[in-house]
């Protein structure tokens, strides 16, 4: 679990930056939670594939396939993504 946490935070660090910058540039804050749950994760995975690719071996040895890592990240991001979407909708 601790290993997955490391993967999850690395992916979402890139994801959060990507989603926030895109939302700021477009000026439409509603895009932040939508990107955070979709394309932002893909950006994070692409970053990981390019700059931390060899680290996947750690996860493989611990029983995590790449597919499981990515799908779990998508699933876990739905909760904060939905909450942020709700907050933005309520206050805008």
């Amino acid at each position: 679990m601790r290993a997955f946490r490391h993967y999850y935070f690395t992916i979402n660090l890139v994801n959060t930056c990507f989603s926030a910058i895109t939302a700021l540039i477009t000026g439409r804050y509603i895009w932040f939670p939508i990107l955070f749950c979709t394309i932002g994760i893909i950006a994070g995975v692409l970053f990981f594939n390019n700059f931390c690719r060899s680290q996947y071996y750690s996860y493989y040895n611990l029983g995590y396939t790449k597919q499981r890592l990515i799908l779990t990240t998508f699933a876990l991001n739905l909760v904060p993504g939905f909450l942020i979407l709700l907050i933005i909708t309520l206050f805008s």
Partner: protein
Amino acid sequence: MQILSATNITKSFGKRKVLSAFDIECRTGEILGIFGRNGSGKSTLLKILFGIEHSESLQLTLNGNPVRVKDVIPNSVIAYLPQDTFLPKTLKVRDIIPMYFENGEQQDRLFYQPEIHRIANTRAGSLSPGELRYFELLLVGHLSHPFLMLDEPFSMIEPLHKELIKNYLNELKASKGIIITDHYYRDVLSISDRNILLKDGKAITIESENELADNGYLPSK
């Protein structure tokens, strides 16, 4: 005793057939050495068995029961030490160990291995190549998988660490089956129970250093 058996492994890169209906078997309690010239398919073979490289054909069994290659990782059948270093460079050794082992007793077993206490506060990116390789080997070796595949574990390792690794692998084989491939053939021969040479996509059984020379892996004497 557990038996991992892979039959009919076939792999081509374009028109070049690297592994040609090749069979391999490993049992717990033994170290199997695999030799081969560069490009002979050693690393490819290990990646195929680990399930991260596609092959044209492969039947994998564990104790006679068929195993789908895509289940090797989720079912923790084989642990794998790849050629490339794979630890996060920014994390310290003492933070990486709990990532691999959540149980305190397992963590202690690793912390008390020779040399680990000395490097515990060093970041993985600051370790010497030899120290890093040694630490990575200990990490994958301590996992509970019944089989362990090592791709060039002696690469960049200083002589003192080599002896530590050999002793460790000899202890480890009591509970695991180990497949090892490395160009440091004398180190492999000194610990292996069986050896094969990959040549032209086929496996040739090797008994001695002389046979490595006879089959074109080493220069003729």
